[in-house]
């Protein structure tokens, strides 16, 4: 039997045809919700990028009118010249949008929704309606955040970390409504993430297809599952902290007000107790999806599957004990600093395991450089730089020098742009056929990748040097300082690279939209992959499978000597395979 015991696709398994609104807007289908997240978070990615361009203009050419900046109101940029108060809003909102409304929903909202049921052989999420609410709450949160630019005094001005008491006192920050909207928006986002996470966790635990045991799950699902646990437990802390901050701003509580006995450092502890798990929320799913793509592109089983899983779990677990490394110079107890330094350094170990195992996967492979694979290898190459530069900050004495400098800015962008975004470009291209039934342009994908790699490094690598020179973050006009003035040519170089980088991203957006309507029609399994989702037609139908597939092996059986082709789908039954033993069901 050479063809798989292919489960039949269900065009409308048990579902009556639905109207446009129920099908595409208030949909409970996990794939549509994933796609909704995709469109919305790509929009916010563009917004965040747009804000970054304005920041870069000001840093490269301080005090010069921004081209096209004349359309901004007088309170932000009179005559196109950015004002200091607008600059802080830009910095704050760029970070907030990118972290909370672009990268996080792109990784978790899009791919946890889209991949978990498809890769596990479930018809849908455990709670489809809660899933829908999760999207709409996130959408609402994004709109509230965006509204910040349109209220009197403008958007929040205390940085994306909103350190109290600056954020708690409108009289000191100058932002009244903007800062409140920031808090309200993040409470909404927290709610959305919790609703999403409980869905993902329940689905992974309860709704796997027969034979899909824990250690047959693809690494992407493992990573998304662990990420969901992090999100579930971390976001409520942020919500709680944001509520306290909101109360400080509105009803006169004194949580973070030292004058009345409150503690300024309490906000930092709460924020980073959430914030560090958040950092792993922003990278673990990328690591998982990159693992899938690299195994596919190398046509080889993933190297050390089990240690990859344990590395994910280890990173997530250690992630709760390192938050203090954001606070080494904050006046925190220095003994606590030592503890946090050790746990932070230890977390480099599981990250190293992952990098070496990806290389092990490529070793003696048969490497296909399709666009997702290029981006995945780009991810590994760039994540290494970001990971290694993290060691500089982990060493406490050195952190005293480079904390809050551009070295940190370089580090976070190497991890979040070089890491997460490269993985996302790969992942979007990879699963695009299953989402929309068409393939993104290969040629433009490659052009986008190489140009991005070039301009990205031109933009962010010099920031290490700038930071080593002692340049502080969030400085409106670096020429105020004598020791920074000689760096102005470097700043202009970074700015021009950043503009080119932004322009390059437009290639991706155009490719995305063009392929949506004009792209080549996709086959069922364009990448010759083993996962369950590739047993469905492209695009995958509502309800996924008519009959749930049976799984016989792990997801990475590429180039298996048992078959002639270089891939072996999880659902294909070989004569040696036994039917999975099924456990009795609880409450079917």
């Amino acid at each position, binding site marked *: 039997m050479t063809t798989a015991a292919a489960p039949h696709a269900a065009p409308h398994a048990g579902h009556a045809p639905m109207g446009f609104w129920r099908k595409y807007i208030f949909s409970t289908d996990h794939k549509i919700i994933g796609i909704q997240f995709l469109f919305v978070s790509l929009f916010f990615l563009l917004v965040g990028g747009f804000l970054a361009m304005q920041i870069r203009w000001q840093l490269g050419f301080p005090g010069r009118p921004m081209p096209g900046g004349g359309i901004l109101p007088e309170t932000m940029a009179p005559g196109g010249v950015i004002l200091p108060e607008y600059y802080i809003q830009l910095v704050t909102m760029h970070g907030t949008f990118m972290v909370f409304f672009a990268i996080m929903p792109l990784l978790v909202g899009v791919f946890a929704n889209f991949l978990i049921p498809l890769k596990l052989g479930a018809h849908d999420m455990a709670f489809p309606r809660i899933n829908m609410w999760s999207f709409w709450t996130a959408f609402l949160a994004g709109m509230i955040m965006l509204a910040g630019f349109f209220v009197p005094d403008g958007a929040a001005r205390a940085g994306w970390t909103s350190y109290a008491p600056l954020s708690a006192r409108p009289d000191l920050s100058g932002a009244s409504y903007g800062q409140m909207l920031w808090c309200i928006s993040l409470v909404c986002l927290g709610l959305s993430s919790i609703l999403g996470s409980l869905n993902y966790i329940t689905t992974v635990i309860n709704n796997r297809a027969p034979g899909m045991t824990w250690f047959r799950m693809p690494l992407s699902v493992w990573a998304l599952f662990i990420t969901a646990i992090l999100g579930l437990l971390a976001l409520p802390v942020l919500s709680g902290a944001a509520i306290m901050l909101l109360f400080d701003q509105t009803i006169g509580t004194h949580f973070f007000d030292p004058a009345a006995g409150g503690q300024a450092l309490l906000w930092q502890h709460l924020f980073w107790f959430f914030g560090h798990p958040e950092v792993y929320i922003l990278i673990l799913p990328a690591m998982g999806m990159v693992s899938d793509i690299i195994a596919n592109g190398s046509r080889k089983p993933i190297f050390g599957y089990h240690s990859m899983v344990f590395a994910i779990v280890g990173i997530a677990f250690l992630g709760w004990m390192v938050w203090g490394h954001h606070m080494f110079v904050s006046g925190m107890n220095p003994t606590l600093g030592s503890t946090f330094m050790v746990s932070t350094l230890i977390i480099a170990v599981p990250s190293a395991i992952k990098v070496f195992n990806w290389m092990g996967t490529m070793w003696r492979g048969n490497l296909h450089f399709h666009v997702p694979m290029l981006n995945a290898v780009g991810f590994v190459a760039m994540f290494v730089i970001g990971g290694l530069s993290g060691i500089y900050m982990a060493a406490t004495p050195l952190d005293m020098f480079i904390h809050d400098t551009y070295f940190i800015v370089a580090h976070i962008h190497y991890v979040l742009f070089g890491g997460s975004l490269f993985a996302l470009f790969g992942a979007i291209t990879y699963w695009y056929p299953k989402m929309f039934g068409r393939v993104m342009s290969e040629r433009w994908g490659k052009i986008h990748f190489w140009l991005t790699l070039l301009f990205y490094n031109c933009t962010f690598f010099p920031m290490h040097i700038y930071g080593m020179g002692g340049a502080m973050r969030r400085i409106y006009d670096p020429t105020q300082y004598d*020791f920074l003035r000689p760096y102005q040519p470097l700043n202009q170089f970074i700015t021009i690279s950043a503009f080119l980088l932004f322009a390059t991203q437009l290639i991706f957006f155009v490719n995305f939209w063009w392929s949506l309507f004009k792209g080549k029609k996709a086959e069922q399994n364009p990448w010759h992959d083993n996962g369950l989702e590739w047993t469905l037609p492209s695009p995958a139908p509502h309800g996924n499978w008519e009959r749930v597939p049976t799984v016989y092996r792990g997801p990475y059986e590429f180039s298996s000597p048992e078959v002639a082709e270089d891939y072996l789908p999880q659902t294909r039954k070989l004569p040696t395979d036994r039917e999975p033993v099924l456990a009795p069901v609880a409450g079917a």
Partner: protein
Amino acid sequence: MHWWLPLKASTFAGPIDGLFIAILIITGIAFVVVEAGLIWFIVRYRRRPGRKAFYTHGNARAEVIWTAIPAVTMVALGVISNHYWVQIKGRNSIPPNAYPIAIHAKQFEWQITYPGPDGRLGTADDFTVRNQLHVPVGQPVVVHLSSEDVIHSFYVPQLRVRQDVVPGMDIKAWFQATVPGDYELACSQLCGMGHYKMRARVTVHTQADFDAWMKQAAQAGTGGTGS
């Protein structure tokens, strides 16, 4: 511009720059190994028709090796770093003979209070200067940091010293300058829209110059800065 760390002007520069270079070497090796390996694999194992990849699920020995090496390196790095950390910020790190200066940060200026000729803070001959930090060379200085409103951060790159100034907390930081000269004190924690211009001039004097300045400034009462 320069492509390297700023001038080493305090006793902290030795250990901190040393750590920097040590980590640069460690991460440099890791970086070269990984990137060269990636490029080598990309070229060597690129797709060829009719070839099948080597079928393996892993190698326990290789994985133990590349788990153990980073683990040992990181623990060693942690031990070394902690040694210097305790000297720089540890509970008992401030030298007992350190010269005290009180710095009060507010949006957007540094109010720097000198102990006056008697060398003790909190006495009648103290005087306060805006945005002018004068310290003697070769003498440990302890700054008592306090904030009026929000969190600021005391940062002098050439002295390799940084400490957040947190309202409601009384934080001390110390340093010992080694090279006389003019430097800049920057606020490195976002403190509002004037954050970018919250700077002060740092002058490291020789002991004789410092004494002369102190005498003259104490007489003027406001430091005679003209600022």
